[in-house]
């Protein structure tokens, strides 16, 4: 059965007058294969991966916005916990900060609103790399 005028009007008014939107779309990216003993290698691969997939997320989100006429307010990316990726690297604040800046830069370049994953899973104890990451947070 085709949709009635009343039903269409109700939905259209939600978007035009009541700011009905899709709040966030999120893409999870596995970065484990970017791990490296060299910070430069890690940040470069992470940057390339996030920019590539992030731009793809934005293109897909734009198509959905056009198709359904419902705006998407935020585009978000979630990545492998940073502490895991930092395990083989020197336990210094400089390393952690450099990696954080790489994440930030990639998200900015891909025009992503939020990037999550700068964290550690410590519910069953902490490794040295995890402690180092937590210590690096201002």
């Amino acid at each position, binding site marked *: 059965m085709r949709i009635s005028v009343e039903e269409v009007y109700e939905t*259209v008014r939600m978007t035009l007058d009541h700011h009905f939107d899709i709040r966030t779309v999120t893409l999870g990216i596995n970065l484990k294969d970017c791990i490296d003993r060299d910070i430069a290698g890690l940040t470069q691969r992470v940057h390339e991966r996030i920019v590539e997939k992030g731009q793809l997320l934005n293109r897909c989100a734009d198509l959905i916005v*056009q198709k359904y006429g419902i705006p998407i307010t935020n585009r978000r990316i979630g990545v492998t916990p940073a502490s895991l990726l930092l395990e083989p690297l020197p336990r210094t604040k400089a390393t952690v900060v450099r990696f954080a800046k790489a994440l930030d830069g990639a998200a900015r370049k891909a025009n992503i609103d939020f990037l999550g994953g700068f964290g550690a899973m410590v519910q069953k104890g902490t490794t040295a790399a995890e402690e180092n990451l937590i210590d690096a947070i201002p």
Partner: protein
Amino acid sequence: MTEQKASQICIVTVTGVDRVGIVAKLANVMARANINIVDINQKILEETFVMTMAVDVAESAIGMDKIKARLDRVGKEMALKITIQDENIFKAMHRV
């Protein structure tokens, strides 16, 4: 294999004040873009003129962004709010 192509129905919604030539203008935009009009309905709801038009964009000569831009232009000319949305959004909102 049959040659029949799948249809992609979108709903064009026009809201505002009724006047001469709305259907003509919209039909013109659709015809130029090779979009088939499947169904048209209109009603006065809460003192607002509301017209819905079901169109099949599967064979459209232009993308959704361009269709939208052309409809926006018509909307500006005639002081109407015109939207185009995939039919499935309404099904998802109103059908169980």
